[in-house]
Structures are given as C-alpha cells and as structure tokens.
C-alpha cells in the first residue's frame, strides 16, 4: 500500500509537469485541479499510514542506495509532505484564478509548479546526499523560472539574481557532498552516520561548505539580499510558494545534516555562530520590513526575519540535555509549519489587496478596512501567527523555543525571541494602521472573487488552529523511526 502511495507522491508531479507542458494555461488548470486532488489524497493517506504504522525506509523500485533512490519516510517527512500538499494546493487554486490567463507565457506556470512540487517531495523524503542535491536543484530552477514568469525587466533581473545565488549555494553544497563521498564512498546519510567517528578537519570543512551553501539558499542573514527582490516581484501565488515552502527545503536539509552529524562535526562556536546570524536576521529583517514602502516587500522582509528563528535550532540542540534538544526540535518544526501556512496566507491576502487597490504601496491601503474587510482580516490573522501571539502555531513554536532557551541557560535567545515578536507586531500593525485610515466614503476598490478571498483565510485559520492542536501534531512528528530497516540499506 505505502509503495503505491510513495510512487504516486513522486511521479504524479513529474507526470503532470510533462503533460501540462503540452497544454495552455486554461487546459493546464483543469489538469492541475485533478493533480492537486490526487496529491492531497495521497499525502493524507501516507500521513495516516505513518501515524498508524510508524516510519520506514523505502528503496524506490527495489534499487538500494548507491544506485537507486532511497527514501526515508518518517513522521517529520510525511508531515512536511502534507504541509506541501496543503500550501501547494492553496497556491495552485489561487493562481488558477489570480494569474492573467491571456498572457502567453503563463502556460509555463503549471509545468514549473509541478516540477517544484516534485522537488519538494524529493527533499522531504530523500535519504542520501546526492538525491537531496538533485531535488534541491529541481526546486531552485523551477523557482527561478516562476519568478521570471512576470515577464517584466525587473522580474528578470530579480530572477537572474536569484539564479546566481541558488547556483552558488548548490556549488558549495555539492563540494561538501564530494568531500563526504571521497571519504566514505557512500552518500547515504544513515550509513555516513554509522561510519563517522570523530571530527576530521576535511569533514568539518565539508559540513561548513554544505551549511554555507544551504544558508545562502535559505537566505540567512547576511546572505539574504536575493530574497526580497525575488519574492517581492513574483506574482503573489508564486511568492507564497517561495516563502512558504521553497526556502524551507534548503533549511530542512541543513537541519537534517546538523541533527545527524552535528554532534561529532559541530563545535560550540559553529552552533552559537549560526544562532547569532539567525538572531541578526530576526532583528534586521524585521526592521527592514517595517521600513518598506511596498506591501509585498514588507511581507518578503518578514520572511527574512522569520527564517532567522529557524537557525536557533543549531545552538539549542548542540551539547544540551536530550529533553531540551527535543523541545527545540519541536519548536523549530512548529515554526516551519506555522510560518509556511501563515506566510502563504499573508502573500495571497496581500495579492488580493494589491489587486483591489491597484497599487503595491502601503499608503494606498487607506480605507480598505471599510470596504474589503475580508482579505485584510486574513492578512491580520496570519500576522498574529507571525507575531507569535496565542493561540497560533507561531506562539506554540515560540513557547517551546523559550522553554528550550531557559532550560539550557542560553537566556540571550530569550531576548531575541521576545524582541522579534515585538518587531513583527510593529510591521504588521503598520499595515493595519494604513488600512484603518478613513479617507473617502466611496467604494472605488476592485472586489476580488470570493474564491480568491477564501483561500488565504483557510490557510490563516490553519496557522491559528495549529497552536491548539500542537500536541497531537508533535506526537506524529516524534513517531519512532524503524532504525532496523536502515541496516538493510547498508551496502
């Protein structure tokens, strides 16, 4: 049963990408609706299968790691697969209505969309370094294509900048992979984990290279400069995909590397250093978000800030007691999920608002609260999660990270967590403030169709509800993983 599910998960997006290449935007939309329904059903089924039976290793087509593709199907991976299905479906549905079907280049949206989805599933499930690399490249290239889809010169410039950053990041990562391969002759993470004994300088360099490359792709401060232009200029459903999911993929790989190898190859300096960069991202990104005159730039810089929290994983899991490390991991996972939902909601809502006021400027929002309360409300709800106020998923994440910081005696991260929330409130309330201003009594706004308005609301409510059901979600994430199966992959 699970085999079929996994096959469906990986091959549907690839098949759909190829098929939709043959079709125009409108026909591609019909096809994609079907594809999204399949993906949603398969992801849900797999999630429940793992919840019932626990995680497992799976060698695709029976070929083992050095030649074939080994997949690691655990609670964390299937949760992210499900998250991708939710956010991807929301963005796909929104894009189907939002994008202007008459532009000739829009027909490339669906192929790129499906390649992106395939790459994401590949990253969540990948168990060896090379296949992770391939999936990551697939993601980067299709993401760059999606950014360039706007067609204007500015979009092309941002896409090009994104492409250079992504390629540089991939190169650094690939160098690290090569070093590992040279030393161990395998790329399977599980096998490397077993063979690795101590911190050899070459391997430390390899880890550093990989982390640096992945940090560049994740847009960690100070390597974030490519993100705001790309996420700001892309069409809103694309921005939602990029901020919600794409940057999480490279972080996910970095986190997996750190959790497997960090205890032997890492050092307190590295752990604290990553944390400091994350903290700087939180503060600096939030401040820049507050200063932006354009709505989507505010949301894009907010991503830079929210990504910063994720890198607190490094100091909070290094050389600390097992329960503390667990708290931090749970907190970071919740942060990834809640940010994906909230940020996608926020970008989609921002897209609706921009459509309505026909301008990207924050100042243009005056009066929106009077005539278009619904999209603004979705935007606000998503903002509550970003601020980390209860009962949202963002709050649950912040609470766990606070507990982890306090329990490990690293009180300086407490300051960052609390300050970050205040700064997030500052940039979100700046938008409210602009929209509550009453300037005229006439409604000359464009009112988007209800389907466009409903999608961000659903995502925002999911982000909100995540905080209330955090305990059951975390219990699936923590499901025991069948390590016995890992032995079978051993060459």
């Amino acid at each position, binding site marked *: 049963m699970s085999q079929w599910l996994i096959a469906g998960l990986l091959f549907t997006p690839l098949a759909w990408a190829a098929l939709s290449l043959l079709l125009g935007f409108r026909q591609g939309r019909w096809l994609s609706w079907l594809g999204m329904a399949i993906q949603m059903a398969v992801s849900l089924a797999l999630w429940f299968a793992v919840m019932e039976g626990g995680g497992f290793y799976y060698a695709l087509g029976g070929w083992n790691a050095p030649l074939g593709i080994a997949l690691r199907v655990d609670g964390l991976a299937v949760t992210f697969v499900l998250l991708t299905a939710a956010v991807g479906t929301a963005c796909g549905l929104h894009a189907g209505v939002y994008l202007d079907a008459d532009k000739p280049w829009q027909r490339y949206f669906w192929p790129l969309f499906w390649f992106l989805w395939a790459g994401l599933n590949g990253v969540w499930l990948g168990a060896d370094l090379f296949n992770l690399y391939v999936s990551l490249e697939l993601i980067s290239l299709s993401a760059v294509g999606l950014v360039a889809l706007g067609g204007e010169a500015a979009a092309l410039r941002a896409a090009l900048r994104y492409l250079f950053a992504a390629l540089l990041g991939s190169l650094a990562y690939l160098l690290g992979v090569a070093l590992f391969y040279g030393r161990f002759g395998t790329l399977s993470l599980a096998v490397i984990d077993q063979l690795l004994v101590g911190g050899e300088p070459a391997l430390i360099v390899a880890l550093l290279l990989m982390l640096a490359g992945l940090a560049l792709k994740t847009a960690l401060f100070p390597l974030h400069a490519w993100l705001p232009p790309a996420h700001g200029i892309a069409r809103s459903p694309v921005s939602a995909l990029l901020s919600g999911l794409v940057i999480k993929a490279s972080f996910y790989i970095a986190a997996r590397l750190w959790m497997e190898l960090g205890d032997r190859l890492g050092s307190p300096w590295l752990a604290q250093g990553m944390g400091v960069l994350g903290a700087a991202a939180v503060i600096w990104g939030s401040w820049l978000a507050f200063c932006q005159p354009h709505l989507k730039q505010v949301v894009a810089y907010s991503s830079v800030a929210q990504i910063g929290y994720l890198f607190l994983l490094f100091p909070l899991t290094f050389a600390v007691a097992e329960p503390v490390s667990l708290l931090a991991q749970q907190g970071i996972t919740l942060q990834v999920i809640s940010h994906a939902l909230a940020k996608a909601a926020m970008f989609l809502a921002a897209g609706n608002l921009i459509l309505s006021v026909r301008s990207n400027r924050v100042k243009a929002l005056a009066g929106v609260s009077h005539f278009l309360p619904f999209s603004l409300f979705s935007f606000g709800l998503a903002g509550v999660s970003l601020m980390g106020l209860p009962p949202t998923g963002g709050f649950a994440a912040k609470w766990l990270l606070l507990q982890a910081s306090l329990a490990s005696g690293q009180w300086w991260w407490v300051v960052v967590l609390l300050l970050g929330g205040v700064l997030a409130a500052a940039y979100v309330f700046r938008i409210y403030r602009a929209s509550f*201003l009453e300037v005229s009594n006439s409604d000359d706004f464009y009112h988007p169709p209800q389907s466009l308005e409903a999608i961000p609301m659903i995502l925002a409510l999911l982000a909100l509800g995540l905080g209330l059901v955090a*305990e059951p979600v975390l219990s699936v994430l923590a499901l025991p993983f069948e390590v016995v199966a890992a032995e079978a992959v051993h060459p």
Partner: protein
Amino acid sequence: MSAGALLPILALLSSLLAAVVIFALPETSHRLRTLVNLLAALLKLGIVAVMTWGVFQGIDFSVSFTMLPGVRFMLRADALAMLFAGLSALLWLLTTIYAVGYLEDSPNRSRFFGFFSLCVASTMGIALAGNLFTFFLFYEMLTLSTYPLVVHRGTEKALQAGRNYIIYTLGGGVVLLLGIAWLHGLAGDLAFRETGHFQGSDPALHGQLTLIFVVLIAGLGVKAGMFPVHGWLPQAMVAPAPVSALLHAVAVVKAGAFGIVRVVYDIYGIDFAFALGLLQPLAWLAAFTILYGSVRALTQIDLKRRLAFSTISQVSYIILGVTLFGPIGTVGGLVHLLHQGIMKITLFFCAGNYAETLGVHRVDELDGAGARMPATSAAFTLAVLGMIGVPPLAGFVTKWVLGTGALAASMEWVILVLLLSSLLNAAYFLPIVYRLWFSPVVAPWPAERRWGRLETSAWLLWPPLVTTLMLILVGLLAATAFSPLSWARLIVVRMYLP
C-alpha cells in the same frame, strides 16, 4: 462530556460564535445583528448565572486538554472567576444595548460588533482561565480584539491612540510572557489554586521567584493602568463611548487587575508573597497611583479624559486591597473590582450621552445640562457620589472595608491615602455636578440632536439608569447574601481557610 465541563466552554463559545455570525452578516442587516448581539448577551448571562449558583453549591466546573508538551489549556470556574465573569456578562449586556443606540447610522458596524464580541469572549476566557498559560492566551486575544475598537473612527488621532495602545499593551504582554515562561521553566504548569503554590518552597529559589514576581506585575500593570505605565489609558478615550466603557469598566483594565489578584493569591499565595516582602512595595505603588491619577484628573478639561485619569486612580484601589495582608483588605479589593466597574460604566455612559445628544465633550460646556437631560445627569451625579464614597453607595462600601482592612493589617497610612483620595475625587467631580445643576446655560449646545419624547434615545438612556440602580443596590444591600460584598467574602473564606 459532563455538564461541569460543558458550561465553561459554552460561556466562551456564546460570544465567540456571536462574533463569527456577526462578521458573516452583511453590513446592512442591522436588525438581525442587533438580535444576535442581544441573544448572545442574554444567553451568556444565563450561563454565568447558572455557573455562579453552581460554584456557590461547590460544584466543580473545569475542563482541560494538553495543548503543548507540558502545558494545558484549562478552564475552571472558582468563586473569584465568577466575580469577574459575572461582572463582564452583566455589563456586556448593558454595553451592547448602549452601543446599538450609540452607533446608529455610523459606518463599519459589522466590524465593530464582531470585534466587540471577540473582546467579551476574551474577557470570559480571562475570567475562567485555570492556569497562567490559558490566562495569557486570552489576555493577548483581548489586546488584539480591542485594537480595531480603539481606532474605530479611523481618524488620524484615533490611529495615533491605537498605536500607543498597542505599543503599551503588546509591550506589557511580552514582559508577561517572559515571566510566565520563566515561571513555567522553574516550576512547571501551575494551576490557579486558592492557597498558592510556593508556601514552603526551596529558599534557593526565592531570589528568582522575587524577580519573576516583579516581571509578572510589570507586565500586568500595563493593562491595570498602574503608574508609570498608564500612558495609553487617557489617550484611548478618543474611542467611541461604549468602547471606553469596555476598556475602563468591563474588560481591559480589569483584566490587568484580575491578573494581579491571580498571581498574588493563586500562584504565589498571599502568605508567601508577604513573607518574601513583595506586598509592601506594591502597596506603595498602588497608593501612589491612586493619588497621582486623582491629581492629574483635577486639571483635565475634556470630560472623558478626566474620567480616564479617575480610572487610573480607582483601579489601584483593587491592587491596594490585594496588598493589605489580611482577609478584610482582600474583600475590599475584590469587591471594588465590581463596584468600580458599575460606577465607571455609568459615568462613561453619561459622558457618551452628553456627547451624542448635545455634542458636549468638555467639562466647561456642561453648564446647565441638568435641566436639559435630568435623568442622565441624575445618574451621573449618583455615580460621582458613589466614587467619592458617600454612604450608602457602592464606593462607600469599598472604602469602608478597605479602611477596616488597613487597620487590621496595621497599615494606618492607608487610611490617610483613602481620605486624601476621597477629597481629591470630590475636588475633580463635584465641580462638574455643580455645573450640571446650578450653572445657567451660557451658549447653545454645540450639536444638539432630538430623539423624540425622551431626553435622548431610549437605547442610550436605559443602560446608565440600570447601572445607577445597581450601584445604589449593591451599597444598600451589601449585607445580604447575594451582594458582591458577600460573594467577595465567600472567595476570601475559601482563600484563607482551605
């Protein structure tokens, strides 16, 4: 699920669902919205009444589930919770009636009443919260749902006030979160318990516990309007009158004061807090805030601004009562939670009536308004007399009990503060009363509106009259079994004699 678990959830849901329904209704369906509002308010009042009776009988209403590893979401009704829940359920009904009249013909009513209901849902959550974590959850929800009400008018001035409101309250929320997370790291998930949790705790922890106490009080003090973090309260008076009533009497400042009561009694325990020496500085701060608010109120020309400084002063009576180490002082503080609410809401209703009917916002424009609006002015006068502490009105009961409590705790200086504060109350309130009744009308009213036979709209007139009746009754009948005073005694008996 048993009835005991169901009722707290229903109390919460009644206004939460009302909010959802109201948001979903189109802007133009005013009648239906009013109906939903009133039904929800009546339903909630009924639920709270049943629960209050149940708590009196000793029935345990509680429900909880694990929200995060090691943290429970917990609702529980104890006697203290019902004091606050009863206050907000009762005054919500009246404020809703008032708001319907007040906002007639104004835009954005759907948004207003939606957030209004969310606000009351949060207040209910704050009252029924069974641990600090749940309390914090609703405390922040209250902050967020009041913001759209404060900036409701959408003017530059309202937005400025909203900005300051949010800076103060979210700032306070962050400080409070720090305290709660710290305490959780130290002692785990602590449910509110009448005797507190730390009696006989390890002396090595006392240093940290003292610090945490300061952090918690600092966070809660923002909403309670304690000096020096009271700055948002006078500014927020640009909001419509029903919102001011909500901020000052029903929800926001009360949430802060209620939180302080919870921390002192149900987390630390009054004996332990006293032994750590935490109560004395808090008493001084409260006393200072009482006098400071009154002195500032003296010089305010804007009527609502004067009332706002008066709130700063009056809320600290509650804190002062809490810090008087002894059962009588506690009774005084708790009963004032209710008394202040009834009196202050009357004053704000009346101020709103003057503004809506005559267009009057300043104290010096009120000359002779008593003849034009006798019923409103009578209500205003009685509420003022209550505030000053004239027997047998509500304020007198508070001040009497507080004074007795101070003597019992041998803190004689508190008597001096009470006397001084009463004098100051008289000094800033009585001139208004004089102007209302005895000064001749000098100029035409700035913007007079006629509402038919009555002096103002019936929706606006009845709520202050009802609250005036209440403030007389709670004073006159203070000694009977179902007065707020008796309920406060019940709480204290359960607190001090476990």
